[in-house]
């Protein structure tokens, strides 16, 4: 018998598969997995793999820079 996580995951994956919308998944990854790490670390160059990603990457970079700027003016915790 599959546990709760496996059931939920299967359900989620099947939803994504039905949707078949890769840009949505990629958008989600860009919003969460890169985040401020990109700018703060300075170790990553944003790469553009396809025409559809240009806007995503630029938006992400802008958001990351904005967060960095905000962080720099916040007093240390």
């Amino acid at each position: 018998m599959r546990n709760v996580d496996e059931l939920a995951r299967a359900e989620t994956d099947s939803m994504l598969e039905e949707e078949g919308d890769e840009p949505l998944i990629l958008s989600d990854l860009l919003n969460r997995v890169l985040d401020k790490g990109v700018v703060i670390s300075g170790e990553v160059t944003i790469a553009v793999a396809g025409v559809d990603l240009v806007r995503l990457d630029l938006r992400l970079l802008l958001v990351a820079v904005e967060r960095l700027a905000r962080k720099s003016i916040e007093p240390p915790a």
Partner: protein
Amino acid sequence: MPVHLYGVLEGGVLPAASARGLDGRPVRALSLGARCAWVSDISESALEATPQRLREHDAVLREAISAEYSVVPSLFGQLHADEAALAAALQRSAESLDEAMARVEGRVEMSFLVAASGVAPEENSAAPRESGSSGREHLLRVRNRIHAERILRDSAAELAQSTTRLLNELVVAERVVESPAPPVLAARAHLVARENVARYVRVVSLQAASAIPELRVVVRGPGAAYSFAAVRIG
């Protein structure tokens, strides 16, 4: 050799022997006392971010989550000069790691996205027809399109809010994604106890079913808690 950090787990938790990370490289555990770091050896001194590598980074942590391990994720792009440098960095971040580990214990990140479905709204009979080619008609079409986009964005925000209200009991913490990248119109990430994952998916699925045709909702997870426990190691 530089190492790429995927995340930090409790000591003794090993990736599957077949686990592969960035560019198909093996994933191994670097034991550090009470913790271990899942890493891959990287030949480059700087790592270029590509969609494929992002997916691979995320997939390693999803596997760990799937095995019911508690994971403090690393954001993509944290490279360390070698194992010793990483060990020293983890030592310096010990306090933050302790807090993050406590936060993710028995919890995972779930998220939902609201996006345009691509279904066009019903044609407004009062709207100018495409055949008209005057500047005024063109501007009216632009105005109508902008108006429709604004309505869709507002509807997405309302849908996200109402979904969040329904999820209230299941959620430990929430992150509202500011200015989500297109084509997403609204997005929320939630920290959720493992035992509530299935209920979370069910609630969001019901909301998705009741959404207007112009919108659709996609639920993602369970995954690593990037939005709530990612620690900057360095």
